[in-house]
């Protein structure tokens, strides 16, 4: 089949240059010594001026981590990380900006290149000023800027780097940190607990609807540096927040580790909408370099009628190991997971969700769309479970996979556990390829084969794209097209 060979050639010819965020910023950095030890943890804690309890918490996590093994159940194969050969802390030397003017101009330039507005003025000049987004930018290990803080404060919303929150709101942080993802939850989460350097902290007071989208933008810049951010979002009774997360990294030949933890807590009647567009550097077409993305994300619908919704568009990373989950503890609470995972080249994705139904009349919905191209492997892995007490629990799951080319793989591994007769679970999954007839129809109307493929793929993922805030949806749509470039023969 010559078409197959052509596909391979096309895939091979994808230049890594199509990853347009692959540039590097040259600035002076301060780093911990290489490797991990109690001293390094003390160093990180001291750099952050942390209270004693925080240091103890970290050291405890470190001790537990030393006894743990890296998980191997996911369908990903990679060279194991040498945990003593990476830096666990890297921060720009100029630190503690009081205003944007104090930020290293190189960093500001970086975010400008990435299209992230750090200057509030610029954001205000946007086309739709009512859709302003407050941004917390995390550059390697530290938060470099958080915008719109004053305005948010007026509404009572706390949005700041978690390192500051630990100092300024220790009681809040202590109450919730590790309450959703326990310190010993898994190998990567425990490592994160020991060494996390920064991330975002959000608290929405009772009854407050957060006046704008909150967003964190993560950027790994330094070589040999792991990024371990920690995000904690608490939506108090009856509040609402929509939170966006974006990620990029420079192109490098070696693999870089990203092991983040995100914890969400929704109290009674609160709602959290968490959206991610993950576009870490995926490595080149031979599988060299790229980010190892080992992330633990979990939301706790702690209060009755609370709701947590995860939406993710995953196009980057060499390895993705990520299962944003919901614990549906409160009665009548609801969890949602909408995911698009695109893999091309040599990427490996193992992603999905867990919906743990504990409360009565809890509902969940999972829509997962996997697209594999090139020589990539794309796995959906999910768990839906209903506890005995979860009377009237409902789940609907739909996971569809699309294969482009015959060198890739698409896999589905769902676990569906019902311990309760009144729980109703429905699960459906399909795997197929793009119909040649559909493609011909589009081409007959003048679209090129690649455009036709992109159009059909966008139709395939539409249910999920609709869940994203508008600007993100447009960006995501473009990203999907870019990451599938060269995938048709």
């Amino acid at each position, binding site marked *: 089949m010559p078409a197959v060979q052509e596909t391979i050639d096309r895939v091979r010819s994808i230049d890594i240059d199509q990853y347009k965020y692959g540039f590097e910023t040259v600035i002076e950095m301060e780093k911990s010594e290489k490797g991990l030890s109690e001293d390094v943890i003390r160093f990180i804690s001291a750099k952050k001026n942390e209270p004693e309890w925080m240091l103890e918490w970290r050291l405890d996590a470190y001790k537990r981590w030393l006894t743990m*093994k890296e998980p191997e*159940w996911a369908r990903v194969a990679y060279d194991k990380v040498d945990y003593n050969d990476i830096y666990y802390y890297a921060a720009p030397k100029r630190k503690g900006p009081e205003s944007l003017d104090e930020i290293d101009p190189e960093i500001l330039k970086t975010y400008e290149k990435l299209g992230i507005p750090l200057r509030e003025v610029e954001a205000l000049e946007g086309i739709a000023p009512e859709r302003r987004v407050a941004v917390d930018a995390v550059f390697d290990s530290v938060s470099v800027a958080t915008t719109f803080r004053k305005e948010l404060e007026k509404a009572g919303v706390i949005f700041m780097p978690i390192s500051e929150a630990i100092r300024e709101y220790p009681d809040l942080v202590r109450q919730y940190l590790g309450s959703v993802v326990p310190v010993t939850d898994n190998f990567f989460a425990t490592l994160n607990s020991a060494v996390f350097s920064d991330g975002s902290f959000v608290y929405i007071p009772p009854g407050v609807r957060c006046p704008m989208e909150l967003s964190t933008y993560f950027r790994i810049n330094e070589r040999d540096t792991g990024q371990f951010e920690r995000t904690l979002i608490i939506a108090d009774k009856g509040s609402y927040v929509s939170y966006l997360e974006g990620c990029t990294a420079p192109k490098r030949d070696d693999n870089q580790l990203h092991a983040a933890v995100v914890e969400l807590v929704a109290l009674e009647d609160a709602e959290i909408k968490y959206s991610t567009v993950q576009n870490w550097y995926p490595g080149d077409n031979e599988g060299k370099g790229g980010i190892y993305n080992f992330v633990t994300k979990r939301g706790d619908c702690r209060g009755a009628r609370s709701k947590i919704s995860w939406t993710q568009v995953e196009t980057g990373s060499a390895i993705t190991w990520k299962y944003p989950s919901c614990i549906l503890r409160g009665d009548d609470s609801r969890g949602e997971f909408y995911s698009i995972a695109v893999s091309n080249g040599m990427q490996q994705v193992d992603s999905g969700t867990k919906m743990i139904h504990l409360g009565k009349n809890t509902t969940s919905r999972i829509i997962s769309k996997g697209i594999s191209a090139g020589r990539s492997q794309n796995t959906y892995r999910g768990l839906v479970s209903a506890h*005995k007490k979860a*009377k009237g629990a409902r789940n609907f799951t739909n996971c569809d*996979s699309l*294969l*482009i*080319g*015959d*060198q*890739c*793989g*698409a*896999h*589905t*591994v*769902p*676990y*569906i*556990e*019902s*311990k*309760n*007769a*009144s*729980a*109703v*679970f*429905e*699960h*459906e*999954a*399909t*795997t*197929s*390829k793009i119909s040649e007839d559909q493609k011909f129809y589009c081409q007959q109307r003048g679209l090129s084969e690649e455009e036709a493929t992109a159009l059909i793929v966008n139709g395939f993922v539409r249910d999920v794209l609709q869940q994203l805030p508008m600007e993100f949806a447009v960006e995501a749509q473009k990203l999907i097209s870019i990451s599938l470039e060269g995938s048709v023969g």
Partner: protein
Amino acid sequence: MADVTNLRSPAEAGLSKLFESSRKAFASDQAISREEAFRFFEATGLPSRRVEAFKYTDLRAAITEAAPPAEAPSEDAARAAVAGVKGFAEVEAARLTFVNGHLVAALSDLDRIPEGVTVAPLNEALAQGDARLKLLAPVEQVRENPIYQLNTAFLADGALISVAPGAKPRTPVHLRFVGTGATAFSTATRVLVEVGAGAEFFLLESHEGPAGLTYQPNDALDVHIGEEAAFRHTRLNREGDAAIALSTLSVRLDARAQLETVNLVTGAKLSRHQIYLHVAGADANAVVNGATLLGHGQLADSTLLADHAATGGVGREMFKTVIDGDSTGVFQGKIIVRQVAQQTDGKMKSDCLLLTDDGQMMNKPELEIFADDVACGHGATCGAPDEDLLFYLMARGLPRATAESLLVQAFIGEAVETVTHEGARDALIGGIEAWLAARG
């Protein structure tokens, strides 16, 4: 972590002892490598829930004691045991009767085997080093299964069935497995079926045993379906209520071969039926169904692996589970489509009806796809009977229990109504009705 696996459970230690002591009895059969099989088993041990494939069926916890292999029964004892068995009794068939895992010639129709079919007792075949034994373990993955390896290690009896190319006997062969005794025992049988090119063969298989006795049958059926041949298999699990029943069906399908296998489970405290399919030839067709009805304190596990390694294969897998009381249903199904297996059409479905709040159902339907031109899918549902339907039936005057029975029958009937052999189908429907009647 490493030292945990070295800790052997009493049952595992017991099995090792039993293997050593029965080694002498295994004569000098070189045709199967018991030693290798047992070493393999020893290395893995009885699989616990930490082993992914046994996540929901923890054999290490369930099998607390190694039961000794059953001796061949006396003819009188065998006759007494067989007297009351019901499985497929109404169906005209050539019966091969196994009591406690041993073929009883006097209770078998060895002289009435349908034309075109030959049957040889496994013991003879082993002693003579029958060439057909090389067809054992026709699916690669089954060789990594501890239950199957344990069966090989302790293999006591069975049969070799050959169907001549082109032969289409109307009369089925019935493998009738009966357990009897007053103390715990284990069995290990293996039946090998070779269906020649263009042949069509019906096989019935029933399993029955005493109530209240923790016996441990481990039965394996290895099947090789030749080109354009059809193999139609109907199985009935009516094991005693304390039995731990393990079984493995492995099938290789050549080009344009057809498989139909339907398993009805109502018996055993714990059962695990493993089905391995290797689609080796193009345009093969497989229908694999399971119907499971569970009452109190039971666990029934249906585990399926369909490995498509040739183009144009069609797979239809349908599993239905009804759970009453505090029982557990398990379905694990995996469809693999290899890169060469373009145009594979695989559909897998597992539906469960939970009649009480105490029951639980664990579903794990998997797809592993490496070919792009495929249409594969799986579905799983789980829930209580539809209240609206129940209400509708009750509004027409049916008592709730009757209405529920009707819905259960309609639900589970779908999995058995495709059985080609009319008598076998009626027997399965009878089994379902009996279960519903006993439920009251």
